[in-house]
């Protein structure tokens, strides 16, 4: 590889980037826009869930229970006169859940035969339904604790259960979504930036000119890679700064490790883009493939939002060949848990392996031939 020739190619590629503002847009505006939008917009913490409360006979026993719900930040309590109306509102999606205290509620509690509290949720969104159940349970336990104080003898609940949540004690969904989001955005940027650059040369016929030039294939590819690498790392730095300063995601690990992992991941993403680009030779097909094999899997299969541990075994095996999966895992650990070597080292090794693989295959598949 000759430094002067490589320098010439890099200059050419850089000029092309600077002339077409869309590449700069992808590297800087896109992460800014996406992180702000998603960081503020995407949350799995249900708050102010509209819940209808039907108390057939409101009295001093039911009141504290309703009050416990009212004091929870998760609920927006709507007292309703009857179950029929509540069912109506639930089917019109105006409330997400109904808490029903039957008319024999107080009497049952007094004679120590457990009264049942009916909770009806709209199960369409199973995850939110699960969360709502958990939140109601919390309020219910607060109420039980109060009843315990009032009663002369202890009631139920003999176990003193204590939960400790490590790494994210407030269970802020942003703290795990934002680091994962960085991986999704960097996949998008890396692959999109390069997926079309080689295909474009083929389509416009400028590939012939490049081949006639006294440069090797390795130099052509390196000339394409380096400017986009710098661009991508700039976007990465911007994303991390946003995560830390705007979204207040704690960064417990070292910045150096973060930079190293990002550089490796950037090489993998650019390598995938280049490979797609040199195989497709057609911008439409290259673009389609780039979306299908990079962005959508990074969104759904990387563990960014859906936990890989819950997927069926066959799908878990598929996720092992996705670079985004390793990067998401590094990001979530470095941000929230710190430098956990047992996570970082194997994941970095996988990324390095993939970078070598994609760049190697691209080089092997690119010949200075027109057919």
């Amino acid at each position: 590889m000759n430094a002067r020739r490589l320098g010439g190619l890099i200059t050419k590629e850089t000029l092309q980037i600077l002339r077409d503002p869309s590449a700069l847009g992808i590297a800087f505006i896109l992460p800014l826009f996406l992180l702000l939008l998603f960081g503020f917009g995407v949350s799995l913490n249900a708050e102010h869930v509209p819940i209808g409360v039907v108390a057939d006979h409101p009295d001093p026993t039911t009141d504290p229970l309703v009050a416990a719900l009212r004091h929870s930040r998760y609920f927006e309590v709507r007292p309703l006169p009857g179950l029929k109306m509540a069912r109506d509102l639930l089917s019109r999606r105006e409330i997400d859940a109904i808490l029903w205290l039957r008319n024999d509620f107080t009497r049952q509690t007094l004679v120590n035969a457990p009264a049942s509290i009916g909770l009806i949720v709209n199960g369409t969104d199973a995850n939110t339904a699960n969360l709502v159940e958990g939140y109601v349970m919390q309020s219910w336990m607060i109420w039980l604790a109060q009843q315990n104080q009032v009663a002369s003898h202890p009631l139920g609940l003999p176990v003193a259960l204590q939960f400790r949540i490590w790494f994210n004690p407030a269970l802020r969904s942003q703290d795990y979504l934002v680091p994962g989001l960085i991986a999704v955005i960097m996949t998008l940027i890396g692959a999109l930036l390069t997926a079309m650059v080689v295909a474009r040369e083929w389509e416009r016929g400028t590939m012939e000119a490049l081949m006639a030039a006294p440069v090797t294939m390795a130099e052509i590819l390196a000339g394409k890679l380096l400017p986009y690498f710098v661009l991508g790392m700039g976007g990465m730095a911007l994303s991390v700064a946003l995560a830390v300063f705007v979204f207040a995601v704690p960064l417990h690990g070292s910045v150096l490790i973060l930079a190293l992992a990002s550089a490796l991941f950037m090489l993998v993403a650019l390598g995938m883009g280049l490979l797609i680009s040199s195989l497709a030779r057609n911008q439409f097909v290259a673009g389609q493939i780039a979306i299908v094999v990079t962005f959508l899997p990074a969104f759904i299969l990387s563990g960014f939002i859906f936990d890989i541990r819950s997927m069926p075994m066959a799908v878990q095996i598929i996720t092992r060949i996705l670079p985004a999966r390793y990067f998401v895992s590094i990001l979530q650990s470095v941000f929230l848990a710190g430098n956990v070597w047992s996570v970082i080292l194997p994941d970095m090794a996988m990324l390095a392996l993939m970078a070598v693989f994609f760049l190697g295959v691209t080089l092997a598949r690119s010949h200075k031939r027109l057919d």
Partner: protein
Amino acid sequence: MWGRLVALIHKEFLALLRDKASRFVLVGPPLVQLLVFSYAATFDLSNIAFVVVNDDPGLAGRQLLARLTGAPVFNQVATLPSTAGIADFIDSGRALMAVHIERDFTQNLLVGRPGPVQIIIDGRNSNTATIALNYANNIVLDFEAEWAAAHGTPPTPATLVMRAWYNPDLLSRWFVVPGIVGLLTFVVTILVSGLSVVRERESGTYDQLLVSPYRPWEILLGKAIPGFVIGAAEAALITAAAVLWFRVPLTGNPLALALGLALFLVSAIGIGLMISALAATQQQGLLGAFLFLVPAIILSGFATPIANMPEAVQYLTLLNPMRYLMVILRGAFLEGDGIRQLANQYWPLAGLGLASMIIAAWLVRRRMY
């Protein structure tokens, strides 16, 4: 005139389907994605790995552990001699949860005092942590009820009984698969229409189209109809797969679903054509498609509920056609809705479709002169 239009549409189909690679990317990837994503996109926890530190020599600790290990969602990976080893398992992700039963657990229970149990959960994925916490809580409650019954201590004064409408087993697949029908239809339609005009411009054939006797609206229609047909075929295929393969019940009126998808396709094509008219190169067209697709998918309620978003963002989602489609899909699939119940989703969708088509027509026209 209609013959002329048919010829134009015929040409568009040829341009899209002529080459084998283009044909393949329209059909192959969406089907593979449907399969993989439908199995992958789940919030249900099925295999929570946990480690145990049991310092309690008594019976109650073992009973509580037996309940945990017996539950299908929990999977005990190790028993540790002391709490010192917990960090290693949780840091590396080999266990999501650690259960520590303290020494005087059984003793305390027998004399009517609270028995201490500690549960440590990896919070890196806060959603997984919340759900695991709920499961663990439920199991402890069951244990408490059993203990109270066996030892004559008074039961809790009330129990919580939950029922879920529309999705009684709370399968997140039932929620996600209808969403994927919309997601894949959306992606394919935006890509087909988003690159349609700009591809001709880049290869220089657009000028030929302009000097032909076609009127602007005919060119627009010629570009829109193939996208509509491909989008509709894609939607039908994926819906069939959702019902026949994934067994998601289609409880509502299929016509209501079809009407919703048709209205949605019109607005998706309008947006795609707008992107195509604005882009100068295919790369820009693809970027534009992305720049629109990604936020539109994330802010549609596909994966995270719109109700959880800040109010300003919630207003923004009103402009997102995908948002209405999500309600229509889930309403028609799970909630048994017909055309009447979904009417308030159709109107905004129709309005968005009309507006986007008008803007697209104006942009395509402006690009001509």
